[in-house]
């Protein structure tokens, strides 16, 4: 059981790094969907385990919600929003992709070092899972910083959200139901708003490069 959870945590980390190495908007959304599927599998595992041991179906419900929201609805929304955007491939980067990949690797090392000081996490398996999950949060945030187009920020936020969920679930094997629902509602609202904004920005300015905001300086 722990073994499969290890494996899934590694695959999550892999999907986060894959995300950093992509350049096309469609690939971002697809990788996010892959990550969402992985989260659903993790939640499903945990859900079945808690069903067997405690008989509670909380986590299974969350798993279903994840599948509905993150695997189906949000990618569809994002695809529709960005269907009319001009450039499909990001060509302009602050730093080139190999450096970004190396920096996400440094982030993994960093999360290992900072988390190894927390007592209670010192045992082998849980430590591995939490380190991987926490790295996903950091890599999501890093992704937000490193991309110039608005899609980067949205996907980065979503990946961070994924990472937070997975960290919580790996370290405690369960989360209060109401907190989870609250987070989901927040997230869906945020995505809707951001999607609408992006469409408006694109129509007005013909580009979603957020760097153009600098032109507003006085």
């Amino acid at each position: 059981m722990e073994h499969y959870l290890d494996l899934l945590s590694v695959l999550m980390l892999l999907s986060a790094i894959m995300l950093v190495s992509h350049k096309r908007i469609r690939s971002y959304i697809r990788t996010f969907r892959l990550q969402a599927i992985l989260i659903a599998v993790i939640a499903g595992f945990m859900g079945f385990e808690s069903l067997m041991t405690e008989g509670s179906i909380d986590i299974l419900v969350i798993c279903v919600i994840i599948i509905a929201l993150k695997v189906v609805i949000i990618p569809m929304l994002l695809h529709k929003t960005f269907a009319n955007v001009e450039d499909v491939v990001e060509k302009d980067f602050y730093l080139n992709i190999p450096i970004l990949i190396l920096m996400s690797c440094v982030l993994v090392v960093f999360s290992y070092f900072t988390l190894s000081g927390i007592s209670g996490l010192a045992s082998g398996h849980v430590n591995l899972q939490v380190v991987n999950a926490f790295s996903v949060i950091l890599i999501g945030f890093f992704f937000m910083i490193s991309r110039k187009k608005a899609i980067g920020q949205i996907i980065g936020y979503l990946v961070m959200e994924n990472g937070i969920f997975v960290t919580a679930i790996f370290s405690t094997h369960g989360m209060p139901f109401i907190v989870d629902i609250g987070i989901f509602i927040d997230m869906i609202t945020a995505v809707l708003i951001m999607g609408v904004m992006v469409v408006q920005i694109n129509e007005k300015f013909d580009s979603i490069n957020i760097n153009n905001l600098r032109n507003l300086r006085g």
Partner: protein
Amino acid sequence: MGMFESDSLLCLTIIIYMTAALVALVFSGQQRISILLTQGLCMLAGLSGAASALVFLLSKEEAFHLNLFSSPIPFLSVDIAFDGLAAFFLLVLSMLVFCVSLYSIGYLSHYIGNRNVCAYQILYVLFILSMLLVFVAGNGILFFMAWEAMAIVSYFLVVFESENPETRKAGLIYIVMTNVSAALVLVALMLMYQYTGSFDLSHSAEQIPGNIKNVMFVLFLIGFGTKGGIAPLHVWLPRAHPAAPGPISALMSGIMIKTAIYGLLRFLLDYLGAGHAWWGYVLLALGIFSAVMGVLYAFISKNIKRMLAHSSVENMGILFIGVGIVLVSAAGGAKEVAALALMATLLHCFFHAIYKGSLFLSVGSIHFATHTKNMEELGGLIKRMPVTAVLCLGGALSIAAIVPFSGFVSEWLMYQSIFSSFVLGQAGLNILLIITAAALAMAAALSAGSMIKLYGISFLGRPRSSFAESAVEVPKAMNAGIGILVSLSLLFGLFPRIAVNLLNGIVSDLLGVPIKDQLTGNVLLVSFPLHINQNAISPALALGLCVVVVLLTLLFLRGIGGKYSQRIYGTWDCGFKALTPRMQYSGRAFSKPIKIVFRMFIKSTRELKLVGDAVYHPESIEYNVKTESALEKNVYLPFIRGVSALSEKLKFMIQTGSVHAYLLYIFAAVLVLMLYNRVN
């Protein structure tokens, strides 16, 4: 003092060197005879030095002290301490001197009639003698005097061809950096005297307090690091080594920069005792930085000697990595790992001296035959200088760490020592070690690439200039010298246990762990494997298998395809039929992909000039690419400018030109000293 004991052989060596210098002076008129005699005597001295060292290392004698000259003046005694470490480095020096002297017999024939052969030879002998004294010095004062002598004599040798302004500038940078670093070493030695009361290196350093040891470490690091050419203190190396004459570059790159390793091992490991792990970490970090920087700049060089000089920076980085691992594991208590790392470092010193010497000598032969060091003007030399080409290939294969040459053995031992030091088990160290291994791998691959570039562009293809077209084979003495070095490299590559056995005594002296324990497994007659813990390599077996396979393949091909027949035709030219040498790949083009990948570290500027009125059909195009070292531009130049500005301002304040001011200075100094004496 028997006839064939190491102490008498050592004295014999020193006497022969001094005789050689005298002979050079005496025969300064008849240059040809003086060359033969002096270099011959140097070869003899090399043989006796090697014999002395071998006798010592193989017969496990006790370390001895010789007091050649003592006087009532304190500190002025020539005190020789000959232990395993000194013997080993003496062996390396002597072997290199033997081959370089043999080579010089041919090389110096170009100097007859144009230059001052007598001065060159005297300086040459003094250079070797000073390095010898550095290795066998028994007390700090003799060490420092020999160190300074080595620096000054080598300066004169570097600027020997002083009509070239580049050479003079190279010499200036060299002498300034060397002397500044020697001053730091002197400060460390003075600290040593202050806390232990003597300069004798065999005294223990227990009286020195901990933080003074740290200060001494930093001073020794900067002092020896500059001499060894570690980035960021390496800027003199790529200028000075190409400027010096061929045999001198070989000696400088082969053994002079290794005196830095000797100094580090002697002072840090032997004298101060491996105290703190952070010393090792600093050495590791500097080593990684030098290795990667050195090999990157080597790859993009177009001057063949400068490429080899940058490659020396890379190898010194690798040696610093080795010493770093020794210190880290010795401080962490893992003595076996430290012993393995020490063995790897010393073997790398040895093998690098041999193959770098052979490469510099081969490149010297190219310069001798074609009068140019620019790769872009060479090409096609393999048909005109066949023997030199084969020998240079041997050297290139060695430095690229290719089986079955000796470079591979020392590289493998480095990997094994990194691999074994994971056992120390600290988090940060493990990550640093894996990054070291990755950096080492990339450096090895890039150095193989730069050797492909060197060999491919200089020797293969068509000649790119008339210099290269008119090259002829060099005199036999030169090829003989290189040949001995290359065959030594091959020998040690195939039978590494020979070299490893020499190190047993040294390692057990310094670390208390005999190497024989590490070498498990027996020496099978067929494969001569080298076992470390559970890992083993057998280059001899690989070579043997390869030869058998090739023979079987030839038979097989004969069977299927009949006798080999070939048709000589032109290179495929897409039907163009007018291939010129300019249409081949040039050295600059070869290194372009790596330059683009690493453009963050290698910033080059380019300018493009089009001559002619038409925009799309210019008459001629001039394309210039300049690569500036970011280190020099951002660190060194501002520093130099600052110091120059400051000294301009202070110039007339101190040196007023007035006699009264100078008398006043002297008077004030006397008064202050008298006061100081009274107060203490």
